[in-house]
């Protein structure tokens, strides 16, 4: 079982994930329409690129935009959650040992206690995200069951991984569940709202080009995100 989920199934999920996000990017770009979107993507390209880079860059920095600054609590929550989501799986020592064994590659690794801390951050942030969704009327009205499902898909690998790492009884079971959850998450990325993993960059680049080319980017200093 362990061989299967870390072997063929892992290959399959990484494959679906990779091909899936590439397809999403290609479809996104193919679906851009200069006339309908009213942005000349292929004219004034340098302004477009500048706008796109600014639009992505400032939003990747904590408190880098007015939007982040006006919601400091949420900003901290968001960055802790996402840092944990992205860094832990990539740099966890155990993952890299496995990578080395199977595919002969590995990345930097972080100490186990750091990974443990990040995992706890992810789980706690997820709980706060849910509480926030219940507590704030302006978020409650938007929240759907689908949002909770997506959150569950994203955090399940962390919860199960945490349990497995701490050698709870039934280690084999938790380990395999953890791997499966991770694979479900990977496969879900192209097909669910988790596609924002890549579409965040596309969408921000698009609005950045809109502002960079048409909405003032050719005058003034560029939009003050």
């Amino acid at each position: 079982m362990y061989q299967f989920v870390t072997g063929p199934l892992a290959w399959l999920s990484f494959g679906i994930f990779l091909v899936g996000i590439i397809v999403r990017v290609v479809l996104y770009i193919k679906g851009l329409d200069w006339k309908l979107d009213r942005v000349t993507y292929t004219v004034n390209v340098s302004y477009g690129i500048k706008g796109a880079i600014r639009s992505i860059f400032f939003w990747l920095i904590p408190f880098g935009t007015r939007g982040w600054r006006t919601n400091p609590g949420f900003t901290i929550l968001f960055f802790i959650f996402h840092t944990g989501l992205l860094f832990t799986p990539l740099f966890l020592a155990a993952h890299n040992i496995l990578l080395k064994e199977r595919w002969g590659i590995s990345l930097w690794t972080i100490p186990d206690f750091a990974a443990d801390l990040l995992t706890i951050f992810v789980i706690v942030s997820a709980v706060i995200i849910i509480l926030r969704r219940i507590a704030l009327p302006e978020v409650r009205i938007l929240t759907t069951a689908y949002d909770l499902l997506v959150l569950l898909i994203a955090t399940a690998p962390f919860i199960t991984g945490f349990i497995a790492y701490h050698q709870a009884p039934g280690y084999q079971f938790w380990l395999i569940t953890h791997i499966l959850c991770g694979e479900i998450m990977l496969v879900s990325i192209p097909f669910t709202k988790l596609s924002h993993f890549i579409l965040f960059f596309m969408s921000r680049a698009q609005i950045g080009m809109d502002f960079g080319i048409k909405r003032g980017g050719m005058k003034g200093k560029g939009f003050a995100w």
Partner: protein
Amino acid sequence: MAEGILCNRKPVNTKEDLLALLADKSGKQYYEEMNHLHVDSAALWATIQKSLKSRLRTWLEICAHCGLCADSCFYYLANNKDPKQVPSYKIQSTLGEIVRRKGDVDNAFMQMVMDTAWSKCTCCNRCGSFCPFGIDMGVMFGYLRGLCFSQGFVPWEMKIGSGMHRIYRAQMDITSEDWVDTCTWMCEENEEDWPGLEIPVDKENADILYTVNAREPKHYPEDIAQAAILFHLAGENWTVPSVGWEETSLTMFAGDWEGCRLQVQEVYNAMERLKPKRMIGTECGHAYRATVLEGPYWAGLKTGKTPVESIHYIEWVAEALRTGKLKLDPSKKLKMPVTYQDSCNYIRNAGLADTAREIMSYIAEDFREMTPCREHNFCCGGGGGLNGIGRYREQRNVGLKVKRDQIIATGAKLVVSPCHNCWDAIRDMEEIFHIGIKWSFLKPILLKMVIVPDHLKPENGE
């Protein structure tokens, strides 16, 4: 498919139809007929499939439902943080729902969509700058208005406005003759005080082609005279076109994309016919947005630019003051506290925040910024055509509270407002809330402080 006589899916293209609509006072019969208007679901879905592409589709799909856009919307704030005013909710429950149901929606639903698209969003685009994904509900509501228009679910005044543009190529029933007459009249009226004053019509190869808002010839022609005097004092070689003089676009507010195209094409034709160096539009925000920023796309111009360079009036003013074409008497600078109303259409959406600041530095001693300001300023409350829609007067007036509080907080006594919509909204605000402020376009302020060169003074002057 049941359609009404006045309320139907056909745009107004003839004077008879327009007069019939106008005769229906405040749209009583029109809205009554709307209750029986069938939704052509097949056509609606076909339009969506053709025109809802990656950008909007992705926005609808990836919205994280995080609510960060809530506080960005002045309607949300003005309505005591009513969750139903959260931008994401407003668009998901209308456009999002139509897409989920593949266009299979009924009359009551479409009326709700219309009410939301025109009375809960002014397309100010502020939310778009607060969403981590850059989801711009203003853009989506603009699109949604187009769907509403194609189905005939459009406020009465918007249907009229669209008809006006289609028939007169102006938002009001002003013909080319009326327009030229007004110019002549304004020139005659003022030439005694301003010897040599001219309003040249259809002059070729001028440096400046000047275009206006139809409200000026209709309701305050002195604005045209003021523009002429300022160009005269600055020694500009300028002209107005006899045809293609209207810069505004109620068709844009109505979501009538074909009407939008017809309107801007008329202005572009004037540019091509008269070959000016550049076009300058009057102190209006949406007119600039329509004719200069969006218009090239409606007209299918691949460069995304107007046939000749086109600038906003405030850009010309800043340039004229900077280069000394217009000189102001420093002793006449405004002494009272003054603030500036940043128009969504040419500040947030066209990058002219610094230009406005530059002008204020020349004309005001005590300039006070609103909070927030510049790109992040709140809509005046009258954008997106809302000032003119009787059905939503109540909602509009509630929305004005945000701007009212912003102005009061500055302590300013005068609001400089070089945009017709903002100007109107602030005037109405004063009428309703009596906060004791004045409001003004730039032209009258400039005329009070400009230094008149000796050779342009009347003979018997001083």
